[in-house]
């Protein structure tokens, strides 16, 4: 199939097999390896990206399912909230092994895009789709809350 999709602000048109996963399209075809993975079936959230302003797990989406003229934001993208959260993750030591980090940052970005004023409970709800085995989530909360102050 021929896809026409805007990824991180750049319009991309090309032929891809319709049964290719979005995750593989990003990582293998476009070389955007910042999107990680850990289960291939929606359970860990490491592969989370923002598709048409919604956070989704890219491992369980086929290219055929994506409407033409969609937009995708990945960790490599330019976005005010995204960059702010990346900065705060660094400042607060919210990334340990890093395997969940880019998925977690995308989930946090999506959350603050929708509502910059979320409270602790809403942060927990918003980030529950990404598993982190290292941090105990605590420094992640600190980073997100600090980012909120600057929005």
């Amino acid at each position, binding site marked *: 199939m021929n896809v026409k999709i805007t990824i991180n602000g750049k319009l991309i048109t090309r032929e891809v097999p319709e049964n290719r996963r979005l995750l593989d399209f990003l990582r293998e075809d476009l070389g955007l390896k910042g999107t990680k993975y850990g289960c*291939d079936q929606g359970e860990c959230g490491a592969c989370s990206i923002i598709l048409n302003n919604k956070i989704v797990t890219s491992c369980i989406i*086929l290219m055929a*399912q994506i409407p033409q003229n969609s937009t995708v934001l990945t960790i490599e993208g330019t976005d005010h909230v995204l960059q702010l959260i990346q900065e705060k993750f660094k400042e607060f030591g919210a990334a340990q092994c890093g395997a969940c980090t880019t998925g977690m940052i995308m989930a946090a970005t999506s959350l603050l895009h929708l509502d910059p004023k979320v409270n602790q409970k809403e942060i927990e709800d918003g980030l529950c789709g990404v598993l982190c085995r290292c941090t105990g989530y605590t420094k992640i909360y600190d980073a997100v809350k600090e980012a909120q102050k600057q929005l």
Partner: protein
Amino acid sequence: MYSNEILSPTSLKEALAIKDQYVNDIFPLAGGTDVLVMVRNKLGVWGESPVLLNLNNIPKLNFILETDSNIEIGPLVTHTQLLESPIIQKHVPALIKAISIIGSPQIRNLGTLTGNVCRASPAADTLATLYARDTQVQIQTVNNSKLVPIKEFITGPGQINIPENGLVTKIVIPKLEGYFGDYISLRQRYALSIVVVSIAVEALLSKDRSRMDDIRISLGAVAPTIVRATKTEILLKSNAFTKNLIEKAEKMIIEESRPITDIRSNKRYRKAMTGVLLGRILREILSH
């Protein structure tokens, strides 16, 4: 990872024609949160990488409508859309409760109500409420369309009663005026986890609040499909609604349910929980 052939019609008419042609050799694909996991894990027929009928290019299948007596939901409506819909919030609050705990934001942004219904898992979150509401499923073929009650549509775990050339084109939830609706689910974890036991109740108290004019109780994950606790419903409808009656109802629903032991929980626990959960909802109603 996936080698399935995929057909992506752009109109319902085209989709029905394809289904008519391929019949059992093609499987509908909506959000894919069940389909893609089943294909990857080679579950049953999904292991043979069947051809997929991708419905996502048919924007007309995405609607939430309110009619005089019903709420109608199109096959591409996602869980997130339902959560955000004022119509659903107003008319089916118990469904909002059920959906808000499905998977994670990521999964709710992809998964659809119709997919949840057609997957026909006894642990599916939306089904208990849909059963309590006597929901109807619209099935369409190239030259026919009919409404089927959900309890006739779902025949077993993962099994639905649909003609080989049919597609689900609408979920129809009757409005219930004056009813109190609730849903509680027990699960091993509060996110990304599957139901251990769930219960949905839709109850209508008499004006003087002394009796139940109507009550519908359905249970999830205690049988091969969602089941209505009919004996307990009758008990509650045929007596004065008191503390004492609630205790009797708790015992009866435990009697009535026939759960199994599996990887998530055991039979004895599940059985006992049906009583506890029903008791909680009924006491809530009584104290209101």
